[in-house]
């Protein structure tokens, strides 16, 4: 009987360990996020999410996803928006806050291999949804960093764009095999940002 008790204790500890490691939230709780107010002089970053490469590869897209609500006509899921930067924020934390605030679906896993978060899907567009070389990538200031998104720390004024690639990064300008050398981006986010602000008559 002593042995039974011992085994019971071990199982109990294991279950307690599992339970403390899990967090279950209702949908409303999850989306209830607090965005910091952008005050004069506060540090900010810009974040946008685009999937316009899918429009060029419509034939490869999973037929169940060929709807406006998954792939908007202009390919922009989240236009470049200014968000307050909290100290120590990484690309992933900024993205997480932004999608929660905008109620955009996102799924990610923590990859122990790379000790970083891997974003599997945004707005129901997952890796491999549009051909075998498709998935989400991010660029900061027009460069594709060779980092996991939860390892890249942001600084004031950084421009982050999440882009859906259908060709392992080549179609968005971030060649997977040649990441360090890539400083070229076809849709230069900073230029686009300037244009957007100019259209509104603002200054950056």
């Amino acid at each position: 009987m002593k042995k039974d008790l011992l085994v019971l204790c071990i199982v109990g500890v294991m279950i307690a360990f599992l339970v403390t490691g899990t967090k279950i939230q209702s949908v409303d709780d999850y989306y209830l996020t607090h965005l910091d107010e952008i005050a004069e002089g506060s540090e900010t970053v810009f974040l946008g999410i685009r999937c316009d490469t899918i429009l060029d590869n419509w034939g490869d897209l999973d037929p169940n996803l060929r709807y406006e609500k998954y792939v908007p006509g202009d390919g922009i899921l989240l236009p470049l928006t200014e968000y307050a930067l909290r100290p120590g924020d990484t690309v992933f934390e900024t993205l997480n806050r932004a999608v929660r605030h905008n109620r955009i679906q996102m799924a990610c896993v923590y990859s122990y291999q790379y000790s970083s978060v891997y974003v599997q899907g945004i707005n129901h567009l997952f890796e491999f949804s549009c051909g075998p070389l498709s998935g989400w990538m991010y660029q900061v200031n027009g460069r594709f960093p060779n980092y996991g998104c939860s390892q890249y720390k942001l600084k004031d004024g950084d421009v982050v764009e999440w882009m859906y690639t259908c060709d392992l990064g080549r179609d968005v300008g971030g060649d997977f095999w040649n990441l360090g050398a890539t400083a070229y981006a076809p849709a230069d986010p900073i230029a686009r940002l300037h244009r957007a602000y100019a259209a509104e008559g603002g200054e950056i």
Partner: protein
Amino acid sequence: MRKTKESKGNKGDLDFAEKRTANALYKKRAGVTESFHPVILLVYFVGMAAVTMVTLHPVLLGVSFIGAVFCTGMLTGMRKLLKSLAYSIPMLAVIAVINPMFVHKGETILFFYNNNPVTLEAILYGAAAALMIVAVFYWFKCYSIVMTSDKVIYLFGRILPRLSLVLSMTLGFVPKLKKQYKKISAAQKSMGMYASNSVTDRVLSRFRVLSALVGWALESSVETADSMSAKGYGLRGRSSYATYSWTRRDLFILVFVLLALGVLTAGMSLGAGVGFYPAFKGISAGLWDIVAYAGIAVLGLFAGLMELWENIKWRLFVSKV
């Protein structure tokens, strides 16, 4: 009940002996599907398993599962079926729960688990996949009951002599090991083991049985190999004897099975499409969908219904005597 007691006292009671024989006959009655020609068995069971494997449509899988379980129940008897269902239904539930833990696709979010959505669609997908696995498992269970090793060798002995032998031996290994496991644990029980009340002790003592079983398996495989080579297995020109004659009934059944398979395949390729992510869509009732549903209902329940029909006939026959 009273009568049985009396009969037990009197061993010469003819009535009792007759009843027992009839009972034994009834229980040991070979299934009607077993009397079909091996070609039909192969086409039917492999066809059903294949059809089940290629689809994730909940209606098709559900009907296939019911057909497989029905057929298994008819072949093995209720008690054995319930015993195996007691294992396979929890397994089904576990697979259905595991999928949403790793797949976060789907529109209908139920709740968030460690910041990732747990969706209804992922649970449905998991349930469909689990149903498929369990249904295929039951189809192969039926297959292994009716397709005895002599039938396998009769079918493939000429074309693939080695492979058919290996296949039939491998398939025979599971029941063989099960039997030996029971023997070993019975022997250990009779030596006074497993007397402890502690659950841990009892679980640990299973490992002892298992290690004895592995030792036995290795030894027996060596012996089997020796014995078989002594008997001339694997040599050229070795013939086998089998009496499987092709009858008119077999022809009718084969035509029926092939027709139904054709209709089902047509229905499945032109209709009965299914999609789980991001939103579930699948249960529709177009023309081809209904063709597929009808096809699987006819084909999936065919073996079980044949058995049931024969069972009813047999029961009527027994009660008349």
